[in-house]
């Protein structure tokens, strides 16, 4: 009790140290008075009694200090005083303080912003129940040149997995795509997920209105029920409860809404409407061949990922033996959902975080050199303080407190900057990075900012504190002048800091250089088509009988569009270049039997309308384009790309041969033309063999096409005309617009973003380290003006002076570059998978970085050094 009471009183006193002072003064005065009275009584004179009293009492100031120690916490008081002193010092030179604050705040702000993205995308758990137990199941096929798209699975396989696996609490398969959804008379594109029965159980989410699907609603045939997201329910039906029991049309079938999903549930990829998948026809062997679905599952509690993986491996092996025609070489891979979602992005974000931390490190060391220069100017102050009795620890602590005050202010400002800039950063990030809507400043981000600020302030204060620990009290009053001499250790510290800056800059510049070169390489890849001024119009026509009206809609609209002024060429395609989504197998002059489906070679399948090649700028190499004769009842035709022609019949003419594609039909098609290759999956992927088929001969896939319209001017100007004409033909058709340029840019959005941001960081690093080099040189020159004056007076030539100044500085730069290259060599290989056509050890980049840094550094050296050679010896000597 008593000690607790004392603790609180001390705490109170620590923050109000002045409060007890008058009382103490009064008590000490009274004590001295009583002593004095006593000595008077013993017969001393008034003067003598006063002196004797003081002697008997001991040091009054010392007693006061001990009293303060005992009644408060002296260190709190000291820190309070140091902080006040730091603020006063900042007010004395506001320019420097503001500059330092701005640099640090920018550094901390950038770190906070990037970390909040890392936090949202990589660190925060997914918003599902026990998200660490949710896994994805995907397949990979050994020995096939191009496997299934993103590890997709066959629904027939899934049924076997479900009946055999015991690792999972719930398993589901699904696919998601943008599809036409009609509410009332209004049709639009929405993300639609087609899911199997246990889908929502895998995620452990509950409907916020209504219910999930009943078991009797999972049946063969088209869906009759649907579930919508909260936002969709709100915008289309005016509320979540209002949506229950209403209908919407999917694939032109009426579905009753039975449930509403919570607002934060939008799996997969922003899905707004879910409908049940039909039960698979397991007996059909072709179902096992097509890999069109993805699968998720929830691990039983206590089951590890490794255990689930080994169980699935065993099941896959059994299926290989059971269905050798389809399943030979087919493996199952179990991955945590979170890992699978962030897969590609993880490395990029960590690289970004590393870069921004490096920039902050450079900013800190840069500021530290500035502070060090000021510390030299303050040597005098420190020596005087030491001479007056300040302990060494006390002075070091003062420096640290100054750093912390600075760090705290910069941290607050940096946080404000991060809050302001976060939207811009998120807008810069390519849209295919998941979970961007979850980016926010939360507790973890705040903690990060705090830690970064403290580390940064300690880094800042370390050099001056080290310097201050070498105070020499005996010099305090001796040196007296305005100039102070800079010790050897001091100079070495400052040069060491510049070495750190140069080395860090090398790493950033090398990373930035590699990413920029890689991006440029991607940009310079010939894509095989001309993306400029092409309008892309997605349109879907779904009718109960998909045959005639759909294809007629596309034919009629295409004819109408071709007549619009400003249209150079028009066509329609299943997947615009860069959006490849259908792969299969092909055979030349051979129709495979059902058990031979694995014998074909892999290719990309495409459905196009006549005129598409012209509209996209894909050259027709030989033969003819599709035309009016390639219709439903005419002989089947196909056009192949050069890669397929070369691969199928090397050295022979492929035109006139028959091709069979495992697509919607196994009927042989006569090859009538060969077109140039395009990079179907973006510039980073080689062209694959591709077979184009006429849309009027493949009605099912011909119902969802994208028009591609090459125009003479801005393609977007045509959008309204196209929409009007489309609605004129089929009032309920949903259409949406983009340009081929925009689609092409999406394929390189991540490389562009990486190159842009790391490049910007590298530029900042370069600027900061050049300023650092300049600062060191300018300071050295200012310190040695007198010496240089003497040398010039004694006949030294400018060349000799330059050599004198350059010698040490060049060594510093050389060391900085060397250290930087070693570190860069060790770290840039982590960039490997982010690079395209450039090796992490790319000599061009490294030579370029070396030349750039060395060049700018020498300019930064030369400017102050050349001024030194023009020193007037008389002026220089008079300064002393």
């Amino acid at each position: 009790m008593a000690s607790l009471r004392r603790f609180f009183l001390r705490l109170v006193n620590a923050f109000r140290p002045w409060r007890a002072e008058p009382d103490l003064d009064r008590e000490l005065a009274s004590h001295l008075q009583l002593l004095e009275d006593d000595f008077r009584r013993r017969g001393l004179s008034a003067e003598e009694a006063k002196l004797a009293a003081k002697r008997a009492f001991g040091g009054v100031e010392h007693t006061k200090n001990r009293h303060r120690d005992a009644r408060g916490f002296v260190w709190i008081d000291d820190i309070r005083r140091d902080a006040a002193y730091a603020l006063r010092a900042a007010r004395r030179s506001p320019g420097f303080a503001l500059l330092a604050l701005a640099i640090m705040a920018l550094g901390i702000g950038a770190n906070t912003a990037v970390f909040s993205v890392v936090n949202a995308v990589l660190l925060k758990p997914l918003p599902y129940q026990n998200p660490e137990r949710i896994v994805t199941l995907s397949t990979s096929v050994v020995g096939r040149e191009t496997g299934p798209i993103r590890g997709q699975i066959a629904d027939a396989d899934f049924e076997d997995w479900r009946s055999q696996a015991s690792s999972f609490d719930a398993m589901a398969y699904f696919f998601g795509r943008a599809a036409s959804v009609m509410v009332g008379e209004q049709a639009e594109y929405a993300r639609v997920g087609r899911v199997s029965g246990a889908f929502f159980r895998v995620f452990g989410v509950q409907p916020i209105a209504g219910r999930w699907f009943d078991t009797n609603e999972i049946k063969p045939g088209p869906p009759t029920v649907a579930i919508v997201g909260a936002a969709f329910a709100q915008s289309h039906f005016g509320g979540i409860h209002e949506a229950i029991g209403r209908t919407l049309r999917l694939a032109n079938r009426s579905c009753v809404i039975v449930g509403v999903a919570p607002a934060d549930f939008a799996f997969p990829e922003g899905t707004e409407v879910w409908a049940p998948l039909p039960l698979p026809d397991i007996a059909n062997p072709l179902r096992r061949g097509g890999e069109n679905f993805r699968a998720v599952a929830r691990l039983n509690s206590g089951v590890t990922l490794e255990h689930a993986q080994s169980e699935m491996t065993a099941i896959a092996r059994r299926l290989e033996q059971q269905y050798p025609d389809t399943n030979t070489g087919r493996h199952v891979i179990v991955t945590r959902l979170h890992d699978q979602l962030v897969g590609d992005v993880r490395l990029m974000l960590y690289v970004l975080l590393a870069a921004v931390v490096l920039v902050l490190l450079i900013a800190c060391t840069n500021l530290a050199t500035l502070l060090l220069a000021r510390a030299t100017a303050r040597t005098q102050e420190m020596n005087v303080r030491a001479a007056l009795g300040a302990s060494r620890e006390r002075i070091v602590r003062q420096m640290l407190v100054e750093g912390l005050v600075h760090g705290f202010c910069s941290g607050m400002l940096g946080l404000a900057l991060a809050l302001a800039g976060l939207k811009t950063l998120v807008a810069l990030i390519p849209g295919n990075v998941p979970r961007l809507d979850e980016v926010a400043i939360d507790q973890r981000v705040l903690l990060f900012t705090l830690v970064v600020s403290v580390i940064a302030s300690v880094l800042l204060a370390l050099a001056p504190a080290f310097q201050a620990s070498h105070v020499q009290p005996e010099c305090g009053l001796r040196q007296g002048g305005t100039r102070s001499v800079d010790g050897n250790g001091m100079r070495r510290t400052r040069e060491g800091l510049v070495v750190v800056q140069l080395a860090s800059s090398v790493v950033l510049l090398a990373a930035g250089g590699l990413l920029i070169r890689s991006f440029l390489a991607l940009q310079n890849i010939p894509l095989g088509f001309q993306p400029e001024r092409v309008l892309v119009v997605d349109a879907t026509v779904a009718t109960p009988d998909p045959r005639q009206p759909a294809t007629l809609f596309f034919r009629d609209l295409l004819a109408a569009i071709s007549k619009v002024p400003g249209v150079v060429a028009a066509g329609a395609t299943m997947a615009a270049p860069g959006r490849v989504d259908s792969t299969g197998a092909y055979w030349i002059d051979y129709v495979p039997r059902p058990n031979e489906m694995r014998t074909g070679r892999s290719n990309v399948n495409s459905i196009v309308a006549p005129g598409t090649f012209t509209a996209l700028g894909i050259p027709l190499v030989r033969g003819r384009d599709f035309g009016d004769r390639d219709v439903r009842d005419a002989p089947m035709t196909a056009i192949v790309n050069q890669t397929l022609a070369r691969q199928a019949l090397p050295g022979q003419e492929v035109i006139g041969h028959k091709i069979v594609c495992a697509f919607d039909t196994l009927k042989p098609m006569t090859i009538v033309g060969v077109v140039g290759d395009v990079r179907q999956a973006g510039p980073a992927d080689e062209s694959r063999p591709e077979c184009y088929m006429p849309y009027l001969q493949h009605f099912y896939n011909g119902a969802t096409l994208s028009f591609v319209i090459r125009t003479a001017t801005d393609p977007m100007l045509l959008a309204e005309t196209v929409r009007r004409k489309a609605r004129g033909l089929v009032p309920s058709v949903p259409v949406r617009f983009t340009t081929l340029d925009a689609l092409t840019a999406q394929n390189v959005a991540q490389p562009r973003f990486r190159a842009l941001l790391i490049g910007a960081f590298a530029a900042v690093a370069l600027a900061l380290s050049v300023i650092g080099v300049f600062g060191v040189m300018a300071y050295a020159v200012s310190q040695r003006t007198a010496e240089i004056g003497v040398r010039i007076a004694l006949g030294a030539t400018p060349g000799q002076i330059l050599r004198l100044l350059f010698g040490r500085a060049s060594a510093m730069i050389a060391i900085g570059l060397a250290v930087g290259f070693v570190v860069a060599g060790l770290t840039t290989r982590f960039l490997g998978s982010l690079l395209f056509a450039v090796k992490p050890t790319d000599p061009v980049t490294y030579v370029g970085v070396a030349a750039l840094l060395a060049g700018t550094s020498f300019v930064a050296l030369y400017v102050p050094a050349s001024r030194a050679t023009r020193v007037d010896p008389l002026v220089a000597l008079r300064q002393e």
Partner: protein
Amino acid sequence: MASESKERVELLQGTLDLIVLRALHTMGPQHAYGLAARLEQIAQPSLTLNQGTLYPALVRLEQKGWIKGTWQRTESNREAKYYTITKAGVRGLEKQTERWRRLAGLVDKLLLNEG
């Protein structure tokens, strides 16, 4: 190391606090000078007390609530701060005296054995 040196400080501090507390208990209210004079008188010549050293002990005891200081007039009509032991102080004195006796006994025993 750190805890050892801390204990030593604690012990010395505690000793002075105990002596002051005991003096106030037996003598009744006293000002700092009176306490110092009394201690010098009793302990002479083994203890030469720098009178200022009393103050930290006084502030510690006051913060613990064991003594209470009030401004009064001396017989010679000078103003002085008189310290009085409180009820909590009396209890504290008993406890601390007991502790000190045990500690002193223990140290004595150890010194005898080792000697």
